């Protein structure tokens, strides 16, 4: 069975432009902030990769340019919408996010450490889970649906104030077992096509799959404004899409498996700059 899958993979990947290196380019945001899009691989992934590279380097010229300017970046429209939400009181307590957190800029650095262990809750949490905790327990409002409108917009906004800071998620201590689970999911082959995340993103980054340029699959650029659907996309939704594409039953957004996988995948990009909202195909 493995040979057959290998043959299928080989057929898909063997095209006239079988391999195309990521570009040699520097991401400078708004002509002032330089983002790190390439760096030495963190220790826990150094046996598999020498260097970790942002998905930005795998996209075409026009797409890269779109992300370099906050006006040209359509993802920023949604950040603006979230900034308005930030100031809007909601729920029984009559509070807005700003009531407790003041400026959004004061939360710079937060996105870079998520997903992370929450001691009080006894679980690893993603940023959206933490936001919903605030909304339900402190604002007396209802939780936002995972990866949908207001939730993904707010995640993009919180990411935008962390741009340029290095991704730095903790993989040890209480988060370790979730990280191990995420790692196992990453390397397990799935579905009718029997593909694991690693098959494409570790073993074949830089190669073309049909006309797509495979990246290393980091999540430092999430939420992503995809040209394909002209909206912001969240990490779990992307996991779901990828797994569905291997023709497998997939976990759902917000599930513990995806939280674990997000933690693991985020850690593979430790050292790259937070980029979200990024622009991809």
């Amino acid at each position, binding site marked *: 069975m493995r040979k057959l899958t290998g043959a299928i993979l080989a057929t898909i990947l063997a095209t006239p432009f079988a391999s195309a290196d990521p570009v040699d380019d520097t991401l400078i945001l708004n002509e002032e902030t330089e983002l790190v899009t390439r760096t030495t691989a963190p220790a826990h992934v150094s046996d598999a990769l020498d260097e970790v590279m942002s998905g930005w380097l795998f996209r*075409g*010229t026009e797409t890269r340019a779109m992300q370099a300017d906050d006006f040209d970046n359509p993802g920023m429209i949604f950040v603006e919408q979230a900034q308005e939400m930030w100031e809007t009181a909601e729920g029984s307590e009559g509070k807005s996010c700003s009531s407790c957190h003041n400026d959004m800029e004061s939360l710079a650095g937060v996105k870079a450490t998520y997903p992370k262990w929450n001691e009080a809750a006894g679980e690893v949490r993603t940023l959206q889970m933490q936001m919903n905790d605030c909304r339900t327990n402190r604002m007396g409002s209802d939780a936002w649906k995972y990866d949908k409108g207001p939730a993904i917009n707010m995640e993009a906004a919180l990411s935008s104030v962390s741009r340029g800071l290095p991704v730095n998620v903790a993989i040890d201590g209480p988060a370790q077992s979730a990280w191990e689970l995420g790692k196992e999911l990453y390397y397990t082959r799935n579905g009718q096509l029997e593909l694991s995340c690693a098959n*494409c993103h570790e073993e074949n980054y830089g190669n073309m799959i049909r*006309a797509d340029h495979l990246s290393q699959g980091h999540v430092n650029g999430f939420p992503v404004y995809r*040209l394909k659907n002209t909206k912001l996309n969240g990490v779990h939704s992307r996991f779901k899409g990828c797994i569905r*594409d291997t023709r497998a039953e997939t976990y759902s957004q917000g599930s513990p498996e995806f939280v674990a996988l997000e933690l693991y995948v985020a850690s593979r990009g430790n050292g790259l700059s937070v980029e979200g909202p990024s622009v991809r195909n």
Partner: protein
Amino acid sequence: MELTRRRAIQIGVGALLISGLPFRASASTEDAIAAFTGGAEVGSGDVKLIAPEIAENGNTVPIEVSSDTAKEIMVLATGNPTPSVATFKFGKLAASRAASTRIRLAGTQDVLAIAKLEDGSFVQASRTVKVTIGGCGG
């Protein structure tokens, strides 16, 4: 001059270009052109169209049109269900006869820019844009 195969092809392509018809001209592309030009001949000259050779994604393709003396520039996507894309009309305070936007292309096709120049003549430029399908379909 001996008529080689290469020469014959060159003459054929030249004739196509001069006649102003794009490769896969649908009836509606011709109609759109005729409505814009009133049936006048379309030559080549003072109009430029910048579009990527390969579109990262057909849903959002950045393009730019420019000209020195155009009053109006119309953009057509000859392979779309309806070819009309946009018409730019430059006013008195336009510093240049140029504009950029992002368009949707249904598949690999020729994109046309037809300009109505100040002297009343029409010129066109065209670019083939390859629109691809992503890897896993995802």
